[in-house]
């Protein structure tokens, strides 16, 4: 295995690996988790292989209770179907969200604002966008209805913006009480995991705040790469490094080609 191109953090651990491990730790054992493609899938596999073997993975295509052994190319991948406990439809899978059966969901986005609202629809004018993005898919449903939402994005100023250009998926909308007024369920976003830091939301103002920085990253660096004034948790700590066991699982079993955890550039 080539490791000479792994970079970005201590001990040759990639920042994507730190993100995957931080995300995996958000999934508690026996929880029902709504999973998309990419790093969230890596994180879910890792959680199941470590502290959360009984976590139930649900995919919007209609695959429930998947027990995958290799990375899928998407949420409809037939390899997720082999060995799952229930094969059904999209309406059933998403009804689980509305019914309150889903504990946690993971989402990425092109833009995230200080209230944890996400844009995955359009940059520029909605009807004549500069960049047309893929669209909500199940993202809005997950953000509206999952008990907890974990956001995973690269930490860039153009991505962590004061206000999303199109509000696809609700975080805390425009602040305290807004989710309740709109009739949304769930706690809203509880974590934002980036390649620099882990963030959460101030309980009173519902604004994003810095919780931990990854090893080798400074608070100033995080603030400089955030497009809005970032609150700080009472004590900003350091994100724990992945254990040797977690790194081995990621590199040898879960993502041996380095598709999502990097390192094989």
């Amino acid at each position, binding site marked *: 295995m080539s490791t000479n191109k792994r970079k970005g953090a201590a001990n040759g651990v990639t920042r994507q690996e730190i993100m995957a491990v931080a995300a995996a730790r958000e999934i508690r054992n026996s929880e029902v988790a709504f999973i998309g*493609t990419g790093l969230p899938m890596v994180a879910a596999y890792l959680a199941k292989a470590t502290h959360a073997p009984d976590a139930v993975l649900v995919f*919007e*295509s*209609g*695959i429930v209770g998947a027990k995958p*052994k*290799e990375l899928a*190319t*998407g*949420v*409809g*991948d*037939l*390899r997720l*179907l*082999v*060995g799952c406990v229930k*094969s*059904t*439809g*999209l*309406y059933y899978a*998403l*009804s689980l*969200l*509305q019914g309150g059966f889903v504990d946690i969901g993971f989402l990425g986005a092109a833009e995230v604002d200080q209230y944890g*609202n996400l844009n995955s*629809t359009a940059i520029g004018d*909605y*009807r*004549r*966008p*500069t*960049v*047309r*993005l*893929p*669209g*909500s*898919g*199940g*993202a*809005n*449903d997950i953000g*509206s*209805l999952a008990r907890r939402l974990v956001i995973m994005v690269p930490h860039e100023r153009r991505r962590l913006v004061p206000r999303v250009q*199109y*509000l*696809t*998926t*609700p975080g805390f*909308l425009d602040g305290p009480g*807004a*989710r309740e*007024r*709109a*009739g*949304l*369920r769930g706690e809203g976003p509880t974590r934002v995991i980036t390649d620099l830091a882990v963030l959460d939301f101030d309980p009173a103002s519902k604004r994003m705040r810095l919780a931990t920085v990854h090893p080798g990253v400074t608070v100033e660096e995080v603030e400089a790469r955030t497009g809005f004034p970032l609150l700080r948790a009472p004590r900003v700590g350091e994100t724990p490094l992945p254990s040797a066991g977690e790194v081995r699982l990621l590199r040898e079993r879960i993502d041996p080609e380095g598709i999502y955890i990097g390192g094989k550039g």
Partner: protein
Amino acid sequence: MGSSKVVSLSEAVASVADGANITFGGFAAYFTPLAFVREMIRRGKRGIEMTSVAECWVADYLAGAGVLKRARFSNFMFEGLGRCQNFVRAVERGEIEVEDYSHFAITSRLVAAGFGLPFMPVKSMAGTDLMGRRGFEAEKARPLACPFTGEPVLLVPAVRPDVAVIHLARSDRDGNSQLFGYTAVVEEQARAAQRVIVTTEEVVEDTVIRAQPELTVLPGFLVDAVVEVPFGAHPTGMYRYYDPDFEFMRDYYAASRDPAAFRAHLEEWVLGPGDHWAYLRKVGLRRLLALRSDPGLGIARMHARTVT
């Protein structure tokens, strides 16, 4: 048993009018009715409107061929490849109108139609631009306090597409149709549409259907026409029949980045081969057989390294 509903692909495509509102089956890179879509392109269909959830391959083919006029949908994305290039290019140029929904909300609009209801209440989309910003719909969604409890809900109106075009595993001549694996949205799409065309991997005797009725996703009375098209979802995959042709998809995606290259791709793979059989001959027996599912696993052996 009534008279056979089996028709040819060209007859089925000819029955769809220009400007029709169509809901296509499939999901992401799987069981998408692409033989039908290629024939639509050959026949020069125009002004098509899609009522869609995540049928990215249909949207991108139709956008790239200039067939698609508008789409109400929730997500078009080639997972593992990127944004649907033909589709986004046309939207960014203002050539295709869009109306965005969440998966649950657009599916709920189809459910309402299939249930014979004017609307469905949903608990998502509220408070966001999905609710507040309109594309081409006269009215998209309306917030309401529940008359019993006062709880806020969002009402989305029924949508009744002119036609549903759905690719399934096997059908009998009455249209009773079965699918292995997850069903995505096909049951809701079929019940919402005014007319249902099923393209199918194989037409079988009704005794085959009746031997495993639990696999039936569409009873024949919902189905108006059946078209037999083996490998009719290629390059997308069909559980227990064949896997997605990822190599073809990568070639398609590379071509789709440039309009001229995509025209050449369409010429070579859609317009050149005059029909579905010529298309399959061009893809080639060796390639098709390599995609074939292992009967025990349901997927192709080449994609099953560590599944067993």
